């Protein structure tokens, strides 16, 4: 089921990219809808909240722009697509093809990110036009590491949602479980505020969860804020391995329960 070849990967990506290009307007709108970090930046700077953190306005605006970019390239919706496909019986033909069905969804996400990239870039240009003082040029090394970290963040979120998606084999509405994850992701990931700004009590345990590694960690790398890159990447890898093992287990148990609804 996992026998991936370069030809399979290439064709899957090409096909999904062609498909995503059919929805370019929709993707542009999704890109625009991801501007929460800019609103948060506005709230922070207008209320002087950053002073208590000892972080300058410029560094904060760079952080939120980076958070915007990380968010753009780590958005995951696999649970919703899988649930719909399972309910409508569209998953059945995928299950009897010699490729794991989740590779299709994975390719869909990557293709969507590639389609989204130019729109995100345009939004960033506008950001710099209105905030010229925030303009910075990260080194190639920083860009490379932040790209890896963003990809890891995407992998963690993809695996979490894939595990939840597998609950479709037991209950038809698996996406309701995703709602439980959505709130902590929103508040603890660093999308609304840098994790550094959280109360000490929250900081004492939040780093033991995967949430700060979804937005805060990659955004801090890209914005060149202080961060321990090596240990952060290691923690991301540990979460990926852990969630991957859980996914394998849940998938193998769940697919035995598949009732091929709507076939």
């Amino acid at each position, binding site marked *: *089921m996992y*026998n991936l*070849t370069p*030809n*399979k990967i*290439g*064709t*899957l990506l090409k*096909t999904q990219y*062609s*498909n995503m290009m*059919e*929805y370019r307007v929709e993707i542009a709108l999704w890109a625009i809808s991801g501007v929460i970090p800019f609103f948060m930046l506005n709230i922070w700077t207008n209320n002087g909240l950053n002073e208590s953190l000892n972080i300058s306005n410029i560094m904060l605006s760079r952080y939120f722009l980076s958070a915007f970019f990380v968010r753009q390239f780590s958005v995951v919706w696999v649970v919703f697509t899988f649930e719909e496909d399972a309910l409508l*019986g*569209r998953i*059945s*033909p*995928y*299950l*009897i*093809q*010699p*490729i794991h069905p989740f590779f299709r969804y994975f390719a869909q996400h990557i293709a969507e990110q590639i389609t989204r990239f130019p729109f995100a870039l345009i939004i960033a240009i506008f950001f710099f036009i209105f905030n010229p003082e925030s303009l910075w040029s990260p080194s190639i090394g920083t860009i490379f590491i932040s790209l890896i970290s963003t990809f890891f963040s995407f992998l963690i979120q993809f695996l979490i949602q894939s595990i939840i998606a597998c609950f479709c084999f037991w209950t038809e509405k698996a996406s309701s479980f995703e709602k439980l994850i959505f709130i902590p992701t929103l508040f603890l990931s660093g999308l609304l505020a840098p994790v550094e700004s959280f109360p000490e009590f929250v900081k004492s345990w939040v780093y033991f969860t995967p949430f700060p590694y979804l937005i805060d960690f990659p955004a801090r790398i890209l914005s060149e804020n202080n961060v321990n890159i090596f240990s952060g990447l290691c923690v991301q890898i540990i979460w990926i391995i852990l969630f991957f093992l859980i996914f394998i287990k849940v998938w193998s148990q769940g697919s*035995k329960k*598949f*009732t*091929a609804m*709507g*076939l």
Partner: protein
Amino acid sequence: MNSNKIIELKNISKSFFIASKEPGLNGTLKHFFNRKYNEKKVVKNINIEIRKGEIVGFLGANGAGKTTILKILCGLLYPTNGFISIDGYRPYERKSEFLNKISLIMGQKQQLIWDLPPIDSFYLNAAIYGIEKSEAKKRIKFLSEMLEINKELYLPVRKLSLGQRMKAELLAALIHNPNILFLDEPTLGLDINAQANLRKFLQLYNKETGSTILLTSHYMKDITYLCRRVICIHEGIVTYDGKLEKLLTKLSPRKELSIICKSKKDIESLKNLGLDIKNLESNEITLLIKKEDIKKTLKNILNKYELEDLQISEPPVDEIIGKLLTNNN
């Protein structure tokens, strides 16, 4: 063991646990707090053997268990009990080698990417099955010519008619040259010409590739045209497994004799011969006569009455099978 045997099912059963709900608010509350599940045995201890190259039709009323059996055969469902072997593989393990040999085609269900032309889905399927691009190109050309859909390959799937889409679905499902085909209502919703073309194509595919085809359909023409062997399923049990012809003779041991008389008086007289009457109109009568009595009865009628027209026919297959599905025996 018969070396020609490609499919073997021994005592296969499949049960589902289905929640039941009483009507009204009371029922809703009970359903919410104390949901009750009932076990429903959809397939009960069935035994089937199918040889390489056979085309076998599954017959049964809605909910008889035909589609569940197909789902078990292609590996979508785990059987609750029993032994199953398809070309030496356990389908539910979904091994790549097994998946490369089979294909499932479902009427009204699609695997083609809706917003792209079918050609993109064909190349994607080819890559998934590990077929080189040049080889895929050849196969697409060959199959599209056979299915007569050359022009439609480059139009978005959403712009194709149902018949064109079904042909494209078939091409997508056959691109890896499967040697076992599972077809679930493949002609559902197609017009008469499209149905006929699809049947012709499947027959040709079976002849040229020696593939094994298992088919469920509510259109009796699909079954009579393609299948020499049928398996009747009723409430998850195999009630008949054998030649279609034999089944028809067994179910309908009588022929239909349609007579148009010159006078109404003769019709009245024919009515009183004590034979079973299927249909009676002003000067036309259709009698049901046992096959062994046909000669004797015919001689008698020809001697006695002045006829305008006479026709002997088998009862329509749809009618016979319809009776079988209604009577459930």
